[in-house]
């Protein structure tokens, strides 16, 4: 029983370590992070009130800031992220 409990504990520790330090890296290094940074930088560059679209896949694929910005008369940043990068 003690060995069994040790295995369970080892499994949890391995899992937490792996996901905290090794496997959860793509967001900070990959295309998603680049996209987020680009949106943030664009937002920072626009002074004053602005419209920011926060969304999932819908954002980039079904909302056009060029259209919405003109309609509402406010500068617009589309910060939608398509997580399914494929």
């Amino acid at each position, binding site marked *: 029983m003690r060995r*069994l409990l040790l295995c369970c504990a080892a499994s949890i520790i391995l899992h937490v370590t792996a996901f905290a330090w090794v496997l959860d890296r793509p967001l900070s290094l990959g295309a998603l992070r680049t996209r987020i940074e680009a949106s943030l930088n664009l937002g920072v560059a626009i002074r004053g009130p602005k419209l920011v679209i926060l969304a999932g896949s819908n954002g980039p694929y079904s909302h056009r800031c060029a259209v919405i910005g003109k309609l509402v008369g406010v500068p617009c940043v589309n910060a939608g992220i398509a997580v399914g990068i494929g």
Partner: protein
Amino acid sequence: MTLRPTGAAAKRGASAVPEILICNINILTVSQKYSVNHPDEQHFNQPLTIFGVRLLPFMMFHTTAFVCAFLPACLAGFFAIGRLLGPTPALLWLLVASLLFYAQWNPVHLPLLIGSMGANYAIARRLTRSRHRTAWLILGVLLNLGILGWFKYADFLLHVVWPAAPVLGIALPLAISFVTFQQIMFLVDTARDQTGPPGALPYAAFVTFFPHLIAGPIVHPAEVIPQLADPAVARPRLGNLSDGLLIFLLGLGKKLVLADMFGGFADIGFNAAANGISLTFFEAWYATLAYALQIYFDFSAYSDMALGLARMLNIHFPLNFDSPYQATDIAEFWRRWHITLGTFLRNYLYIPLGGNRMGGWRQSGNLAATMLLAGLWHGAAWNFVLWGGLHGAFLIVHRLYRQQFGPLPSRLGQAMTLLTVVVAWVPFRAASFAATQDVLAGMAGLHGITLPRMIVSYLPILALVAEPVSVMPSLGDARTLSMPEASACLLLGWLIVLTLPNLHRMAERSRHWALVASFALSVQAMFFRPHIVPFLYFQF
């Protein structure tokens, strides 16, 4: 709400951005994909409620309510009562716990279960005392088959003879197929044995014993009832507890980590076929291969968990699943897949029909009849009959070939067995004959061969055989990366089933390593999964 710049913007010391936000969450898609109540769950689970409040939580072996509440309470109560009051009250506790486990699915069917047990026990008692032993046995068997026939096959048979008949809509009591076979086995054994039935409490505890109540294994009464009637049954044994828990946790991992993952791939393909979408070559093969792995891991997991639970309660169940995809011929496959059902069908159907004692043609007929009934036992639909018929045909061809030419080389035999078994899963899984035809046509390449454009661009030679497309809509999540993802998962799954020993043949050390690999993923899946996927065999 503010956005804080990161990366280059942060380095430039840019301030937080004031903004108007449009938060556009695709709620419809999320709820469609991850419904809390899975359709299969709703089919069986009509729980006891008062003023809309559910009295008992939803419990299956892989739910948090079962693992964190029911099982510890059941074990603690069983051993505490056994220690304080003796084995009989402990067995009574086990019986009540098992009935509670059954009732949380659909309490309406609880009286049917109790009534069926009472009637069978009364018949068994009469059977041992009466001079008309055979008549009582026939009555008992007909009673059981009558109950099974009414609840499971009435609608099906009615529509066979009268296709325009209205649907009777009889709710199928959970576990009825398994309970019926257990009780028939009990009656036949009692008639053969002549030692008289056991006590009513061990018998009731045996039939309702929650580790095997819902989906087997179909264990021999003579194997389990003496264990339950043993005065030492309620004495805690650390070895059994530890072994049982290890087997249970490994089964939990198989279900939550492997079976449900492959189920996701299979469902997408087969659901598309059910909706009339033609699957292309790879979509059809990926869905079928994924389903073959799903049912393998799902049923193997259930069998392991049942065996582990029983072991924790000091009851030893026989092996029910023994790496069937490693079988080198179809007859061996059936000695390794759902072993207890195969044993039941052989001992209580195939051999009484004459088995292999009546010559070639009669043996072929017996094989075909046994497998057709095995198919029908899985469900009242022509798809299951076709599946059973296919396996009957495979067994007959195998017998004839072996008689003429001897056995195939083992690798070739294994490959052919695997191919036939995998193809036969198509009618078993598909929603209809039309869907079956569609998937089989896709597997034959009749709906064309497509591949993601990204893959073809890396390997242009593939364009000679496959049409490049943006995405394959019925493969995985229909993304460009879905195919590599599904390929990697399928490769892993098939490597496990074809090359590794099952956990009952593993060394102790390997089992512990398997636990290290799977436990945390099981915990994650159990607590954070979007919905509970029932065991496939629950519907049988």
